[in-house]
């Protein structure tokens, strides 16, 4: 559905995206991750056709971007990280405008307001909405025309736990109905929970692309924190069980009988992300 080949985007001398290649399958919930300044937003801008790449090709549903942007406009939706509503309009008026532009009937507007639990605030001016409501209104707007591809930039930022769950369920049900979802987020728990595949980007380059489970399996570090006492003093040591010498050290401490506690450290996707992007805390 989305095919990126050797994408390069330069701003003057600075290369924001450097030879990125990846493909996203139809109906996939694809996570696009990277630390700040990794080139995620730049890539997203190229995908939605508002930024021209310096080189490389991008194909969405068989159409080249940005040359054939007009052809794919009706089949994609884009939820930006900053909301862009018409502040003078109510939530309903905002949705009605976009429904008209997509030639969607007005009852879809009511349906969408209901699905995203915005029906009670539908006739309130958007400037009176909370950040979470604004975010949900954005999602509602971009789902009006039943897009085949949905780009989301931080979809659950500023949402409370209930709304976050609501959005995650909605995204899952969308992918089950064949919609391709391309999402960027900094919420690693979310990535682990909802993404089918994940691409990690750093300094404009693709580091790896795989499922979250595979990432964890491949990069998980089996470490334990051991607390022990010696010469009436307390000590704390982190040992990597993947290393033979450290396994021997742990056995030695246990045999001596002066261990006051052993705690295993969970290694999740967030740790993988930090490790791969060089953001580990020492």
């Amino acid at each position, binding site marked *: 559905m989305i095919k990126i080949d050797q994408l390069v985007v330069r701003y003057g001398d600075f290369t924001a995206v450097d030879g990125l290649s990846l493909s996203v399958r139809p109906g996939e919930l694809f996570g696009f991750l990277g630390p700040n300044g990794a080139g995620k937003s730049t890539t997203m801008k190229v995908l*939605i*056709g*508002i*930024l021209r790449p310096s080189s490389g090709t991008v194909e969405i549903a068989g159409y080249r971007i940005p040359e054939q942007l*007009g052809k794919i*406009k*009706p089949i*994609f939706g*884009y939820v*930006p990280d*900053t*909301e*862009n*509503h*018409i*502040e*003078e*309009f109510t939530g309903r*008026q905002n949705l009605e*405008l*976009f429904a*008209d*532009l*997509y*030639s969607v009937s007005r009852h879809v507007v009511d349906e969408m307001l209901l699905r995203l639990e915005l029906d009670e605030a539908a006739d309130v001016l958007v400037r009176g909405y909370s950040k979470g409501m604004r975010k949900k209104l954005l999602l509602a*707007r971009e789902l009006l025309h039943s897009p085949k591809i949905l780009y989301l930039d931080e979809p659950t930022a500023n949402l409370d736990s209930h709304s976050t769950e609501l959005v995650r369920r909605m995204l899952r049900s969308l992918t089950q109905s064949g919609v391709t979802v391309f999402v960027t987020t900094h919420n690693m728990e979310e990535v682990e929970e909802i993404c089918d595949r994940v691409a990690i980007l750093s300094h404009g380059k693709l580091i790896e692309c795989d499922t979250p489970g595979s990432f964890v399996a491949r990069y998980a570090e089996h470490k334990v924190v051991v607390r022990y006492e010696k010469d009436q003093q307390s000590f704390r040591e982190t040992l990597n069980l993947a290393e033979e010498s450290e396994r021997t050290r742990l056995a030695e401490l246990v045999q001596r009988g002066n261990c006051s506690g052993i705690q295993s450290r969970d290694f999740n996707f967030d740790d993988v992300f930090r490790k791969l992007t060089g953001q580990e805390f020492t």
Partner: protein
Amino acid sequence: MKIRPRMIRILLLRECRRLWKNPSAVMLVGLLIAISLLVATGGAEPKSEMRCWVVYWQDSDWIDQLKTRLPEREEIHIEPASRFPRAGEHLVYPKNSCAIEIRPPRVDSDAEATPVRITYRYPGKDPNVLMPYLRWFWPASIHYFGDAPPFLQQTLPIGVPLRRAVTPLENLQDSSVADLVTTEITATALLFVVQFFTCCHLLVSLTSQDRERGTLTALALTPVSIAEILTARCLFHLTISLGASSAVLAILQPSALAQPLLWIVLVLTSLGMMAIGTTIATLCRTQTTAGLLTLSYMLGVGVVFYLSTQFPAFDWVKLGMFERYSLPLVYLNLKLPLSITRAPGLIPLLLLIMTWLTVAAILFRRYGWR
């Protein structure tokens, strides 16, 4: 480039709703119309017993035609010069009278006839009392002679000896500032302000706000094309501009509403203002910068116009500004009806507007909506 009327209608509706929710913009348009009303009320000719005598020395078909086209509202009498008593070289008119004296062409020694000599005579110190009669006399003469009546004319108080007569355009160009401050110059200035506000300032304000909020990008990512966004914006601002201009004209000079050339110039100027506004909104990242640049543009026009009166080099700068052509054209059209074929500066105005529109459309397409 596809333009679908349905999309234009939706976008126009959106702009109207947005303007309606923006009371300051609506209030400012209302204020401009209120100013026109005040000007019109303040400058209204007092109802008096004023009469106008059209005096001729030689009968002709033209005089006959003038007699058939007399207006109903004004008291105008067409009489031969022999009917009036003389005091030396001058004719003596009854009290509360003004006059349009039509002297026959002089025949030179080489038998070449000079144009008809017209003298507009007014009582006291206010030549404006002639205006209601000139609004009848000029169109009636143009109807007979065509676009450029072969006149040499001058405006003098009653009883003052004749001076060298000049052509109508020379008369306009040679007028003193006091002569120029008339309803026409006020209307020209107000129309310019209306067009600047509705087509440049308001457009910059709304477009920059859209850009800053990202609404423009959101709209552009729907099936609407950039051409449709631009067309809708153009129609929206043009409608407001022409609506407000009509109100100003209806209040200040209703007769001008029927002049096709004036409307052509107003439409062209509005388009030019929109092109400038679109360019400014495209090049500036924030609404504040765009607003400041718009005001600087307005000031810049004024400064260049002033400097051109002091330094001839600025005349060259003025050649590239469409205001150099549109302002005199509006003024001349309000003063006397011109035809499209004889409008001075219409072609350069058209070319400049086309250039600006092309530049604005290219810039907006590349950068403006992102």
